[in-house]
């Protein structure tokens, strides 16, 4: 709240749309910061070049073909949207369920959500051969196409996230507006993820996608991976002295993560049983799912189960749950598991095409990979700059405990904490 009323000019700050951007922090940032930024910039340039190649050469430079009509871009779309929705769930729990221990995370969570959904939208745009034709989505949208709903939801959701971040930082409207924004943002996050799942589930042509449990699986995967990523992100920011969190907050986060992971694994196991049980097994389902246990696709799918159950086991133990290394390992395991899960879920529709023809696993081409890496670099750039410039640290009077803003342990002496006010 103090941020909002603090209108006096301070050295190194630029005031724009009511936010004090700490541009000065960039000026004094150390060489390692800029080395990292130049690496990201190089990757971004490579990605843009690759996109240019894709636009001029056409889809032939991609590894996608008729039997694999969607590839890395769609995996990433599902993945980023999921990560985004998950982070927001943590933030929303502060306001809706009074989970005060997560309050220090709120700005970081919302920034992460906004950046990720932006990356998700760019994944779609960079896949289109003629991006300008996307205007037809607005001119003649087809109400029976699930894509219309997920596409528009992602766009609106991105706006909501950035607006929410602005409200949180400026403190405009106070606690009341922040609370109301949560009431809009959380259902919308659920809606976005439901519609994303519908892009797969509402297809009677693809046996393994055509399952209503796809929607809850998407929601739990999203929440779990989002929480895991937020945890990693919080640890990284703490390591560079941008934030200081209490270990009790990380412990609460771990408990939440473990709970969601086990629900996520449970839903997947339920689906597997339905596919293979003697009295319910349908040939079209069995033939396809078998590929994911004994075929080449098992390389992607078995790790999903192993990493998922492994991450839960790590976090389930009361004695080990509080150890940062254990938390980080479990979180990383699950972030990887969910990426593989997205890939597997996508491949389940493609492994055997509707005319019964087997398709070898899709592996992205160089161009596709560079585009995806470029997008990732863009997202990381947003976060890296945001960590320096934006007042992400929640002032202490907005949450009862936590953050000791003074004396953030600068493991990098060259790094300056972004937050100095309050």
């Amino acid at each position, binding site marked *: 709240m103090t941020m909002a009323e603090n209108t006096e000019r301070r050295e190194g700050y630029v005031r724009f749309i009511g936010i004090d951007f700490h541009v000065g922090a960039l000026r004094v940032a150390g060489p390692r910061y800029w080395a990292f930024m130049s690496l990201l910039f190089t990757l971004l340039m490579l990605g843009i070049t690759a996109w240019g190649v894709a636009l001029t050469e056409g889809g032939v430079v991609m590894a996608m073909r008729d039997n694999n009509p969607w590839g890395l871009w769609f995996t990433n779309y599902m993945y980023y949207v999921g990560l985004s929705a998950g982070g927001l769930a943590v933030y929303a729990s502060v306001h809706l369920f009074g989970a005060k221990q997560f309050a220090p995370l709120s700005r970081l969570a919302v920034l992460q959500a906004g950046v990720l959904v932006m990356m998700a939208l760019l994944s779609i745009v960079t896949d289109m051969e003629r991006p300008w034709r996307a205007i037809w*989505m607005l001119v003649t949208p087809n109400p029976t196409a699930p894509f219309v709903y997920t596409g528009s939801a992602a766009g609106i959701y991105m706006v909501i996230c950035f607006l929410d971040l602005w409200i949180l930082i400026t403190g405009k409207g106070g606690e009341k507006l922040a609370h109301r924004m949560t009431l809009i943002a959380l259902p919308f996050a659920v809606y976005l993820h439901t519609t994303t799942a519908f892009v797969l589930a509402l297809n009677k042509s693809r046996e393994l996608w055509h399952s209503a449990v796809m929607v809850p699986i998407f929601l739990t995967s999203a929440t779990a991976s989002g929480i895991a990523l937020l945890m990693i992100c919080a640890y990284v920011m703490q390591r560079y002295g941008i934030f200081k969190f209490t270990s009790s907050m990380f412990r609460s986060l771990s408990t939440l993560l473990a709970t969601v992971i086990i629900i996520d694994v449970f839903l997947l196991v339920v689906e597997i049983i339905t596919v293979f049980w003697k009295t319910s097994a349908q040939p079209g389902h069995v*033939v396809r799912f078998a590929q994911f246990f004994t075929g080449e696709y098992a390389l992607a799918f078995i790790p999903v189960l192993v990493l998922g159950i492994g991450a839960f086991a790590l976090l389930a133990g009361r004695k080990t749950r509080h150890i940062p290394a254990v938390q980080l390992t479990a979180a990383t395991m699950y972030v990887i598991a969910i990426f593989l899960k997205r890939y597997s879920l996508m491949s389940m529709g493609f492994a055997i095409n*509707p005319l019964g023809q087997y398709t070898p696993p899709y592996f992205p081409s160089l161009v596709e990979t560079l585009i995806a890496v470029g997008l990732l670099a863009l997202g990381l750039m947003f976060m890296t700059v945001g960590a320096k410039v934006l007042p992400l640290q929640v002032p202490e009077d907005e949450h009862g405990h936590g953050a000791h803003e003074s004396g953030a342990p600068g493991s990098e002496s060259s790094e300056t904490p972004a937050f100095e006010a309050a």
Partner: protein
Amino acid sequence: MNLDKSQAPARPDAAAPAAAKPAAAKPAIAAAKELAQAELPQGCTLSRRRFLEGIGAAVGIVAAGAVPAVVSATAQTAAAAEPEGGPIEEIAKENRDINYPGKPVFYADRAGTQKWGMVIDVKACIGCRRCVYACVKENNIGRDSGFTYIQVLEMELGKVDIEHAKLDYDEAGRPDKWYMPVQCMQCAEPPCVYGCPVKATWKEPDGIVVIDYNKCIACRNCMITCPYGARHFNWKEPEVPEKEINPKVPLEEKAGVVEKCTFCIQRTRAGETTACTAACPVGARKFGDLNDPDSEVSVLLRTRRVWRLKEEAGTEPMIWYVG
């Protein structure tokens, strides 16, 4: 670049026919479908259609169970006034236009009063693929684009076993196999048309599903929704030898968009039969007007016991098989 995806060699071991799950209740789509049917009576203008679909979208978003129920009840009242007809007439009538923008697709003449259908005799088919080659030539399909509109499946005797079907067989006419050509079924309930986010593909009044190559945004969702694998993407520019280009069919426009069988719209609307029907050496294909009770297809549908591929998917294909 090697593009022959359709000749994927390996196949799974365990298998049996494809069986789609029973369609679960999907209020949003159901409501929109009902609305599409409700606006069938003639005299509905385009703006009214758009308006109804707008409502469909709104209903879909708030989708409670009760709202679609009310809407569908209204739709049934509207459909109740239909005149009586035989089953074939009924099928022809249901094969209506969907998402039709009011004027024919840019590469076709205006649709006539016919409702096109095809019957394929799998007992006669010898799997020679002459229909495939004729189709490629007629429709300006890129010679190394890696797909053909028609895919002929070689099946084991004794069952309709899609999961064990062979696409890249070497020897045709084997007596211990049977052959089933599969192409766009011009479905009366086409998932591809319902799934296109921008209405770049639609059903014309004569039932032909067309794609506007100048509008397609290349999202490839229609390829996902099609249960027959009938839609193909031009991953590269289609290359056709100068002398073999068919001027009546688009070529450059097809680069980077989805294409598929159009029942040879450029021929059939000019009174000819399809290229595949003309090319079949054993007369296994019959093509004609379902509205005409004396056409070959109508006679076959009335007199022979026919079946359709993936009937359980509820797509109402306009290609029947008889054996």
